[in-house]
């Protein structure tokens, strides 16, 4: 009876039902029900997410989904953020833009992360998509203000331009002035990564004044303080604002102008920027503090007392990013003031100094876990930790979904007992049943991986460094973590056995990164041969790996599942199984 009902529904009705299904996972499940649902679904899917741009080719995507309006692509592996992926590795977006230019003339949104975007790509976007609305370039590189000028000049309906943490080359073009006077559609603009030469302040002011729908504006560092007030007065409707440079000393006229401007911003909920901020200016934002839900002070080099004062004005805070200058005392204040806190990130002010320069220990995090029942996401850099603290945190924050702890000195043991942190992280995975992301640090044996494999059943991403004793550690993770999608490992004694034993698992994951481990070239070759839908890339700057014995370990290994086959845009220091490439490698 149900089967007949399904077939008796006209396509339009099914399509309408499907339109309520937004998540990719659900859409994928829907398309697997039967052939007709697959057909209907593929014609009405409008949003595509490709977590690894090399997992599938643009042509394949276009063939299956002919009417796409929004695409999100990710390129380099996560460890590229820490300079572990050499320049030139790949992640070029141009082939995608080229194909989509022809196939998706009505494409509206492009979101890219860790990809190489050249001006040519931006120019192609500008001229190919008539109704282009959203461009997000997160941690991208390869483009200059020339490319931005092309976007500004041609995209009449652009709503969002977000360059978060990208590297932009300055070509000395005043790109902001390329937005025509008739352009008024900006809703979200993030230019915080740009240098001082790349933004003309007067062009910015004119742009802001003619865009009444502007909700989010993140300025770059070079905008002077007195100009900040002007901008705010032009856009009192802002919900999210990224401030700029604060001047060296307090000037009362600038202060009162700023305070007045902020007090007009009744919708403001999120603040960031605060580079070079002088704490005397903080009272200028007190009028908005009570409504703030998100505060990013992670570039503000101010000390604990001033941070405490500020934070105590923000009872609605849900998200706080801050430097370790906040210290344990500041986190205790946070714990008692901000009961709605969901996300905390504490960054190191001096990551390379062996000695701590701020009194931030495990106590701060324990205080937050005790005081903030809604805590879900933690990123915490510290120099000292204990298993007891980790157990307390785990017990107090069972709702954690993301827990990333970085004990700065590798192989640091529990400072109270001298033990490894197996038990502490074990408690985290036992108590936090919804944990989807975990980063480990400190002294760790194979035991912690046994706990992770046994209990972390929802874990999707695991980052490991300087941990473990043997292949058994890796084996526990690969054989136990059912939901694992991304695994990144550096400087661990994991080798061939665990990988080869769990080879099939590798195809169920998005990707695996291993650098400075003990995987041999022979094992890489074997995996390549046996697993045709796994791209095994050996990244080795010492020269072609087949110039060394097969039992030599590889420097870096990046493996990812792919239906697109091997890629052809690899630099010489990347080896894969394609025979022809061996010829390319010789100088």
């Amino acid at each position: 009876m149900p089967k007949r009902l399904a077939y008796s529904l006209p396509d339009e009705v099914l399509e309408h039902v499907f339109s309520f299904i937004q998540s990719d996972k659900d859409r994928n499940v829907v398309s697997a029900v039967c052939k007709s649902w697959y057909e209907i679904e593929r014609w009405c899917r409008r949003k595509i997410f490709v977590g690894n741009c090399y997992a599938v080719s643009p042509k394949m995507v276009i063939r299956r989904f002919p009417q796409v309006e929004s695409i999100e692509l990710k390129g380099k592996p996560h460890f590229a953020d820490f300079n572990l992926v050499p320049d030139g590795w790949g992640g070029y977006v141009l082939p995608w833009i080229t194909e989509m230019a022809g196939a998706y003339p009505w494409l509206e949104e492009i979101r890219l992360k860790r990809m190489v975007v050249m001006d040519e790509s931006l120019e192609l976007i500008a001229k190919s998509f008539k109704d282009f609305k959203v461009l997000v370039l997160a941690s991208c590189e390869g483009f200059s203000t020339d490319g931005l000028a092309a976007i500004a000049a041609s995209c009449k309906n652009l709503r969002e331009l977000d360059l978060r943490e990208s590297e932009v080359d300055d070509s000395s073009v005043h790109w902001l002035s390329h937005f025509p006077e008739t352009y008024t559609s900006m809703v979200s603009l993030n230019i915080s990564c740009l240098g001082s030469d790349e933004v003309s302040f007067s062009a910015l002011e004119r742009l802001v004044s003619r865009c009444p729908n502007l909700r989010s504006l993140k300025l770059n560092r070079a905008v002077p303080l007195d100009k900040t007030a002007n901008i705010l007065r032009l856009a009192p409707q802002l919900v999210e604002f990224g401030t700029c440079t604060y001047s060296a000393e307090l000037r009362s006229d600038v202060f009162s102008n700023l305070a007045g401007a902020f007090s007009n911003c009744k919708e403001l909920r999120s603040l960031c920027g605060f580079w070079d901020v002088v704490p005397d200016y903080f009272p200028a934002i007190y009028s908005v503090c009570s409504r703030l839900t998100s505060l990013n002070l992670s570039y503000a080099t101010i000390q604990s007392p001033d941070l405490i004062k500020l934070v105590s004005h923000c009872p609605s805070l849900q998200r706080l990013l801050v430097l370790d200058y906040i210290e344990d005392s500041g986190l205790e204040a946070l714990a008692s003031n901000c009961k709605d806190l969901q996300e905390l990130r504490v960054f190191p002010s001096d990551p390379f100094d062996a000695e701590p320069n701020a009194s931030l220990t495990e106590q701060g995090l324990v205080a937050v876990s005790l005081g903030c029942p809604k805590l879900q996401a933690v990123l915490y850099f510290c120099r000292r930790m204990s298993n007891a603290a980790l157990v307390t945190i785990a017990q107090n924050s069972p709702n954690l979904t993301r827990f990333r702890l970085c004990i700065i000195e590798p192989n640091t043991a529990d400072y109270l007992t001298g033990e490894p942190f197996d038990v502490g992280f074990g408690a985290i995975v036992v108590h936090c049943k919804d944990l989807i992301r975990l980063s480990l640090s400190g002294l760790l044996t194979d035991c912690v991986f046994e706990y992770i494999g046994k209990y972390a059943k929802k874990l999707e991403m695991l980052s490991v460094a300087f941990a473990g004793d043997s292949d058994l550690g890796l084996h526990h993770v690969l054989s136990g973590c059912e939901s694992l999608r991304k695994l990144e490992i550096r400087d661990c004694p994991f080798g061939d056995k665990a990988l080869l034993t769990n080879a099939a698992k590798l195809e169920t994951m998005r990707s695996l990164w291993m650098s400075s481990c003990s995987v041999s070239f022979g094992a890489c070759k074997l995996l390549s041969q046996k697993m045709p839908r796994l791209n095994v890339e050996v990244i080795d700057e010492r020269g072609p790996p087949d110039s060394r014995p097969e039992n030599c370990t590889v420097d870096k290994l990046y493996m990812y599942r792919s239906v697109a086959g091997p890629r052809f845009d690899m630099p010489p220091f990347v080896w894969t199984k394609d025979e022809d490439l061996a010829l390319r490698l010789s100088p």
Partner: protein
Amino acid sequence: MEVGVKMGMKGGGDEVGGKEKEKMGYEETELRLGLPGDGEVVRKRDFSHTVDLKLNLISTSPTDDKDKNIVPSHLDPAKPPPAKAQVVGWPPVRSFRKNMLATQKSSGSEDSGEKAAFVKVSMDGAPYLRKVDLRMYKTYQQLSDALAKMFSSFTIGNCGSQGLLKDFMNESKLMDLLNGSDYVPTYEDKDGDWMLVGDVPWEMFIESCKRLRIMKGTEAIGLAPRAMEKCKNRS
């Protein structure tokens, strides 16, 4: 999700297991850092040993047994603690953030020791640019080794016996160099002038170097007069 294909344990296992023994010996051939007096031992946990010179290579011992017999160098009274060097990519702080904080510190504080100094490195004939943080190195030799490694696939056979960097103190050696086809590192300084790497003391170099370019000796000949002058001034 079941693990269907069992790769290792039976048939392939011997192949892998058999290699275990050999693996223990491979370290001898493995590129290692060996600080003077270090001997043959590579300690997996003692990461501070294993970083200094190489950009991306940290050698680790794959087996446990060695670990138990090792006295970590910081406890071994015979060895002075190695100079603390930066491990690449650790702690995992994004470059964006590192650069931001570094610029802030240098504008305010006395200690600019941790300021990152990333410069682009291009090599004639190479299809892509690289970037290096000059503050990762303490001497020209370290930089030279790192550059040689970075562009090794192109410079095999072209480096000459002394690596990329030659002794610029000697006029005739300099002329030989500039006439040959060996690669020569050059840099653009704060004033926009292109100079031969090695002409000023290291500290001064990292302050003034804006970008690096590795070019063929014959092309660097235009830089010769200035370099010659410097040679003359020194002697």
